[in-house]
């Protein structure tokens, strides 16, 4: 009887989890995807299969160009986050023994803050009369405000880095911290100088965390549309912003869906590729 109940229990839970995944993820995705094959006439959506939107994407140079530029933007954000985040994670995991969780908490707190508020905050720091320019002016280093920081791509990159940095630090920290001390000791014991221990043991073992963090940062930077909207000005036009404007202002849902589907497919390919490459480098 108990076995039957157990069996019943497990199968019920399996069914529930399947239903949840299907209804909350797969059905919306499918409907989303199907929309990308429709077209619009004025404000009406024509529910007929057509590859028009995809054709549009590949013909209209601006879309591909923006797409490629946005990928580079996301890669830049990702690499800056790696360069800034890895040392922080490494330091926290290896040296900040007593304070590491306190420092980590300080890094996590901004994640609870509203994303929009953080962008506005960055605006008030980077702006023409923002903190940085004011300080530089006060020090007499500049006469008129620097335009380097706001209403351009730099501003988008800086803001995204500030917002996304914790997302790379946390998984990297976690995987570095998990490395048992005696494995690092063993590398020294077998003749490694500190840099060699890092290169052959610490870095490779901690790599999965860094990869997870990097993918987080890359995907989020790739699809972001609020940051370019608020700090990017006209030259900070990104792919996410095009998708956004097709759903909002242009009211062209099918084209927006097509652009978003392309983004989704590219993101999935990137994730699968990284996964494949890490697995291969392991063996």
């Amino acid at each position, binding site marked *: 009887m108990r076995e039957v109940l157990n069996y019943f229990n497990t199968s019920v839970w399996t069914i529930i989890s399947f239903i949840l995944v299907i209804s909350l993820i797969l059905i919306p995705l499918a409907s989303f995807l199907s929309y990308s094959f429709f077209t619009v006439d004025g404000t009406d959506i024509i529910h007929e299969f057509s590859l028009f939107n995809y054709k549009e994407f590949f013909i209209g140079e601006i879309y591909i160009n923006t797409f490629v530029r946005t990928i580079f933007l996301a890669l830049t954000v990702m690499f800056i986050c790696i360069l800034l985040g890895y040392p922080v994670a490494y330091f926290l995991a290896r040296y900040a023994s007593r304070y590491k969780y306190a420092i980590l908490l300080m890094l996590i707190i901004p994640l609870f803050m509203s994303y929009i508020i953080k962008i506005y905050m960055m605006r008030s720091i980077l702006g023409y009369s923002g903190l940085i320019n004011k300080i530089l002016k006060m020090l007499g280093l500049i006469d008129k405000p620097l335009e380097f920081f706001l209403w351009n791509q730099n501003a988008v990159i800086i803001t995204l880095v500030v917002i996304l940095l914790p997302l790379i630090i946390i998984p990297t920290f976690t995987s570095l911290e998990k490395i048992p001390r005696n494995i690092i*000791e063993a590398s*020294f*014991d*077998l*003749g*490694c100088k500190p840099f060699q221990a890092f290169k052959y043991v610490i870095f490779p073992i901690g790599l999965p965390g860094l990869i997870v963090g990097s993918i987080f940062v890359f995907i989020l930077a790739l699809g972001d549309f609020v940051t370019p909207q608020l700090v990017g000005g006209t030259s900070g036009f990104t792919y996410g912003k095009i998708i956004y404007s097709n759903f909002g202002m242009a009211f062209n849902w099918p084209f927006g869906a097509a652009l978003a589907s392309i983004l989704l497919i590219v993101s999935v390919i990137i994730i699968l590729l990284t996964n494949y490459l890490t697995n291969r480098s392991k063996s």
Partner: protein
Amino acid sequence: MSEILELKNISKSYGKTKVLHDISLKIENNEFFTILGSSGSGKSTIIRIIGGFVKPTSGQIIFKNNVINEQPIFERPFNTVFQDYALFPNMNVFNNVGFGLKIKNINKLEIKNKVQEVLSVVGLENFADRMPQELSGGQQQRVALARTIICEPKVILLDEPLGALDAELRKQMQLFLKEIQKKIKISFIFITHDQEEAIFLSDRIAVLNNHEFEQIGSPKDLYYSPKTTYMAKFFGECNLINCTVIDKKINNIVVDSEYGKFSILQNTNVSPGDNIIFGIRPEEIKIISQANTNSISLAIKDIEFKGSTSNINVKTKNSGNFVKIQNISSNISQSFQQGNSVNIEFNTAVGTIFKNERST
């Protein structure tokens, strides 16, 4: 045999907590040296100091007449087999074993040959492609050992390497370690809390008690000539009898104890009135049928049946303390019963006299 490594007056404390106090020892070439101590006695700290992971608070580490206190870990000619193996999880067996050579920039072909050779020494020729996670505890142990052997260190430090293995495997690995140490001719410093393991494996044993070495010597030395009552108790079993010296002649010390008077047939510098502790191993006591001048009559407290032999504990009529007698053929012990009065005789020539010690 020549001496290869020496620790001189090594002490280590963390703040006010003392971990090691005035540790001195000499390791000889090709020797299997065991540091035996209960958990928390600081035994691991000793090899961590030798390996370079821990700096001693005071004292010197001397290798071939050079003080190497300041030498960094990666330059020391010692390698460690860690307690839980510490194999690199990102490398297969081949790369784990070859790691030490790779770091030294030795060419790939030579590494390959050496790894094959060492893997065959530890009996893992066919496991080169496995990942550590795919190996059993005993196999991981062998990889950890192979990884150190290949570096040709002067001393291999083994930090309780058999602690995590089950009893059967542990026996096998003991045999394996002993054989391999003889084969590769490298000094081993082996840490354990298991006396039997220490006796089986070691050329010499150092017993660590209360942050200091209690005694260092061959297993036989430690068994037959314990220097302290702690050693007598810790290393095998021992009856410790509080005695008062009554009379002393050459090779005959007459003492009185709670069990009665007897003579100790030894020559030690004691005088009448001294309080001593006489330690005698349970197997050095006989039950005799006829009382003689040096026998004591005691009552049987209980009989512990162990199969072919039995232990018998005997006591006086009105005391809780008892003397343990071991290795009595069960054929004989069957004829006794609890409460029976028996005559026992100590083989006092092999007992040990402890002076100036309080009984425990």
